[in-house]
C-alpha cells in the first residue's frame, strides 16, 4: 500500500461522519433479527424446521444463528446506492456461502471493513508478505449493495448465518 492511499483512506474515514451529520433524518429503517432453527414435529407427526428468536432459545457454542436485517424505504423519494454493512460479531464465525440478499451484490471484508471483495478475491497477507485466499471464518464484515434505487415503500431483507464460537 502506498502512502497516498493510506492518506486518502484516512480522509474518507474522517469526512464520512461530517457529511453524514449534515444530512437530515433518514428515510430508510433497519431492523435486525437473530434466529435459530429448531426441529419440531407438527400435529401430523411430520418433522418441521422452524425459525425462532435466538433470544428466546437456548444458544450454545457450535449453534448456527441466522442474522437478518430488514430494510424499508419510509420516505417519499427513492433511495439510491443503498449499501448495507453488517459487522460479524467477534463471538461468531460466518458460515460459508450463507449470505443472502435478493438482487444485491454481496461482498466481504477481512480487515474490519477497510476493503470489500467477492470471496474469491479476498486475500489475507501475513507479516512476511505471503498472501493466501481468506477463509470464511476470517470475515469481519459483510456488505450488500442494492443494484437499483429503492422505491418509496420498497423493502427487503438480507441475511447470513454464523456459528457461535
Amino acid at each position, binding site marked *: 500500500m502506498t502512502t497516498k492511499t493510506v492518506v486518502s483512506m484516512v480522509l474518507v474515514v474522517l469526512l*464520512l461522519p461530517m*457529511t*453524514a*451529520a449534515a*444530512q*437530515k*433524518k*433518514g*428515510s*430508510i*429503517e*433497519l*431492523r*435486525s*433479527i*437473530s434466529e435459530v432453527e429448531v426441529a419440531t414435529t407438527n400435529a401430523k407427526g411430520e418433522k418441521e424446521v422452524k425459525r425462532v*428468536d*435466538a*433470544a*428466546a*432459545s*437456548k*444458544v*450454545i*457454542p*457450535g449453534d448456527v*444463528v441466522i*442474522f437478518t*436485517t430488514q*430494510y424499508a424505504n419510509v*420516505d417519499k*423519494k*427513492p*433511495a*439510491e*446506492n*443503498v*449499501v*448495507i*454493512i*453488517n*459487522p460479524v*460479531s467477534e*463471538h*461468531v464465525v460466518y458460515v460459508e456461502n450463507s449470505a443472502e440478499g435478493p438482487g444485491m451484490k454481496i461482498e466481504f471484508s477481512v480487515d474490519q471493513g477497510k476493503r470489500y471483495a467477492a470471496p474469491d478475491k479476498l486475500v489475507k497477507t*501475513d507479516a*512476511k508478505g*505471503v498472501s*493466501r485466499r481468506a*477463509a470464511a*471464518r476470517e470475515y469481519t464484515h459483510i456488505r450488500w449493495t442494492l443494484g437499483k434505487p*429503492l422505491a418509496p415503500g420498497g423493502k427487503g431483507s*438480507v441475511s447470513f448465518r454464523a456459528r*457461535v*464460537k
Partner: protein
Amino acid sequence: MNTNKIYRVLALLLVAAVAIVAPLSAEAAGTASGISITNSATVNYEVSGVPQTAILTGPTATFVVDNKVNLTVTTTNGSYVSTAPSATSQVLTFRVTNNGNTTQDYSLASSATVTDPFGGADNFNATLVGVFVESGATAGYQTAEDTATFIDELVSDATATVYIVADIPAGRATNDIAAYALIATTHDGGSGGIGAATTDDSGAGNSLLGVDVVFADAANGTVPGDTQYDGEGSDRSAYRVTAAALTIAKTAVVYSDPFSTVNPKMIPGAVITYTITVTNGATGSQADNVSITDSLAAEIAAGRLAFNTQFNDGVDGCGAGSGIVVVGGLPTPCKTNTNDGDGADFGLSAADTVTVSGLTIPLSSSAVIKFQVVVQ
C-alpha cells in the same frame, strides 16, 4: 521450481497449518456462557444524488450465550495397571476435561460394574476403593497431598487428573483382573466446596437474558448409566494381578559329628544344617511379607532331633541363643530364637517350629534360611 518459490510454498503450507490449529486450541470450549451477542447493521444511501445520514439498525438483535455442559473422561493407562496380591494404594489414572463454556465443579465416583476395557475378563473387585484429585503439588498419586474427592472450579478447556486408589485382596492369582470406571458428574461452579448438581434446562423454557444450561455430553456405552446429555463423563481402566512366583528348596548337610568336622557322620551328637532357599522368579512381582515355617515337632517328639540353639556352620557363626540365620530378605544374618521382633524364632510362634516372617524377596532374588539340629 526455483529455491525462492519452494520457500514461498513452504511458508504457505506453514501458514495454513498454523491457521487450522490455532483456533481449535484457543476456542475448543467456545464462547463463555453469559456473553451477549449483538447484531446490528448500517445502511448508507443517497437521495437525489445526495449522501444521507448513515442509518443504524433500530432494534438490535441480542441473545445470550447459554451454558454448554460437556466433559470428557479418559484414562491415561494405555493398558492394565500391573499389581500384586495384598498390594495397597494401587492407582488407576484418569483425566477429566471441561469441554463446556462455563467453569464447573465435578463430583467423582468409581464403578466396579464394568467390563475389562483391555479385552480380558473382570473377575474380582478391589477393596477400599477411593477417588482422589491430583493437587498439582507433586506429580503422581500422593496419599498425603491428593485428598480432594471432587473437582473444584474447572475452567473451560482445563483438565484435572483423577486417581482411583484401591487395595488388592490377598490370594489373587496372576492374570486376575479388576476393571473400574471413573464417572464424573457436572455440578455448578462458583461456590466454596462442591456446588449443586447442574440440571439440564433443555426441556424447560428459555430465560431471555439469563444463562440456561444445555447438556451436550456424549454417552459412554461401556459404562452403565452414562447416557447422552446427562452431564456425566466416564472411562474405564483395570488392574491385572501378577503374583510372585516363589519356589522353595530345602537341603540337609551334616556339619559335624562329636569327633570331627571333616567328613562328619550322621551319628548321635552330629549337627545337621538345614538350608531353605526361597526364590522369586524373573517375572511376576516382588514378594512382600513372606513367611516360612518348618516344623520339627514330629522328630523332636520321637526323640530323634533337637534344635541347635547356637548356629555355626563354619560360614555364619552366631552367638549364644541365636540359632537361625537369614541371608537376604532381612538385614542381619543371625536371629535369636526368641520371638523378639527380629523376624525369626524357634518354638514360640509355633511349637517346635522354626518361623521366619516379614521377608521381602524382589524379582530374580532369593532368601536363604539356615538352622541346625542335633541328632539324638
